């Protein structure tokens, strides 16, 4: 679901801005909401896969920020957009790594509930 947001917003942005209705602040607010949701997921969920999805939300909300800043705050540079592309690549790499670790956790503990991994403490 997270990857669905971005293309949608990227398409919608120019049109909305020219209409004078949706500005930088709107993007930032949406991004902040997504970031907050990601945080909430990371703090509250116990399932390793759900945690991973929370982390993806964090990354993508930041991507949204970069694109919005590139669109509104700078006129002739595309740095923000390029960073976002890198960010998507990194997110994919991170996801594969996360799945590998989750697999190993499952092999060792027979569960993907992160609460169960608590032999290291104190």
């Amino acid at each position, binding site marked *: 679901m997270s990857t669905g947001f971005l293309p949608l917003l990227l398409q919608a942005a120019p049109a909305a801005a020219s209409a004078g209705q949706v500005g930088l602040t709107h993007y930032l607010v949406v991004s902040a909401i997504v970031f907050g949701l990601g945080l909430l997921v*990371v703090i509250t969920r116990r399932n390793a896969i759900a945690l991973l999805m929370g982390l993806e939300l964090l990354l993508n909300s930041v991507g949204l920020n970069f694109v919005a800043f590139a669109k509104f705050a*700078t006129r*002739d540079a595309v740095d923000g957009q*390029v*960073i976002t592309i*890198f960010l998507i690549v990194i997110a994919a*790499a991170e996801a594969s790594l996360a799945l590998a670790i989750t697999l190993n956790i499952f092999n060792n503990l027979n569960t993907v509930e992160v609460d169960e*991994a*608590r*032999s290291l403490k104190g």
Partner: protein
Amino acid sequence: MNGLFTILDAPAAPAIGWDDLGGILPVLVLLATGSLALVLDLFLKEEASPPVPAGKWPLSFVSLLGTAVAGALLCGHIGAAGKPWSGFLGAVQVDLFSDAIGLIVVLGAAFCLLGAGDALRRRGIEQGEFHALVLYAAASMVLFVQSASLVMVFLSLEALSMAVYILTAFQRDEKRAVEGGLKYFVLGGLSSGFLLLGLAFIYGATRSTNLTDIAGALAGGQPPADSSLLVAGLGLTLIGLAFKVGAFPFHAWVPDAYEGAMSVVTGFMAVAVKAASFGVLLRVAVLFGGAGASGPGSPEARGALLAGISGLAVVTMIFGNLAALAQSSAKRMLAYSAIAHTGYLLVGAVSAMEARPGGEQAAGAGLLFYLFPYALMSLGAFICLSHLGEGAEDRESIDSLRGLAERHPAHALALLVIMVSFAGIPPTAGFWGKLFIFREAIATGHWELALVGILTSIVSVYYYLRLVVAMYMLPQEGGLPAPSLEARIGGKLALAIAAIAVVLVGLFPGIFFQISAACALR
């Protein structure tokens, strides 16, 4: 608008050439050696099964050679007092400071690889990936310190993090290793999110991705487009870096990941990851919050960073030292001690922000000086724990070190030297490190940080001494049987080098301080 990707708008002007690759030669050497190790492993697989004592020595040999070449290149650049060089359209900046930090990273990698042969062979997982991952991680770390652009900061950080996540969980049939890796990964992802958000804010506030340009514009009297956004961005970036160096309250992963990982990896993490992250932390802090030649570029940013880093330093020193007191595992105790040392190094970062360019004090000379003995001590201690291990276990609990002085007097002596140095007792290197850092702090008016540092380091004597007491004064009962260490040449070598270097730096600190001062940020 000197952004990195202006090249896309003007394709006619090719800006990246062979010169750029030459500038980052040490990184390329590390990357190439890592890839070579992967390939080499394919050819070694048939003949080297775990019981063979020598194991896959060519793997260790080649990767160590790679670190040696990279280290020599970095040393050469320092020795020649090379001018700062900027390449890849300003995304990479190589100066003596990045060379010095890079050297510590390479040192960490080399020690890790020295000890890794035995450690992997004992566990029957001697694979080329390990060597490759260490070298790739080291390459990313060197790039991380050389980053002058937000993109590079972010990319190299992610690259180094992922390599280290895998290294942490490398022993994948061991529950604790995988658990440590999971914790490191989840919390690392969280911190990456905050760091990225911070970078986005900085980008939004200053409309540029190039750190040097941003700081130059600020120092030139151009206020940022959005000052409070810049401050928020710097704060979030600080959080991301504070996580990487293990500062309280972003430290939670440190004890668990350090304990879960193999001790050789722990040593590498404690040294290389921390050194590289401190390099970037210092660069950001001095660029945005430094005193500046004619006053700070942005007083708000300076105030924010000073308050943030000082606050982190105080709570980290107190927390790390107190929490270490109650540990019964030497490895975990050393993990908390690593947190405590992050606190001392943060004090060095604060005084670095007070130095004026061209003034008497070079920014971060104390921090840079202390990183070197700290690296030697941590590497020596963690590799010693690995070196004395048996099977899939490292020697972790303090009790298992009982009577070590009688069975392996040389090892005990080396560990004694390292512990005495950790505790900051002269004439060891650790004493001078603390002396220089606290002296800088007092000289720049941050005497309260020095006071907390001195008080907490007195507390620290207690837990470092517990190891010494166990080794020298307690009978062997309850300790593990002594493994035969005849064949473990790598660990012996690493431990000896670390201990001797700690003493040498302690006896002749002047030379090393001069090098640190020469390599400090200008």
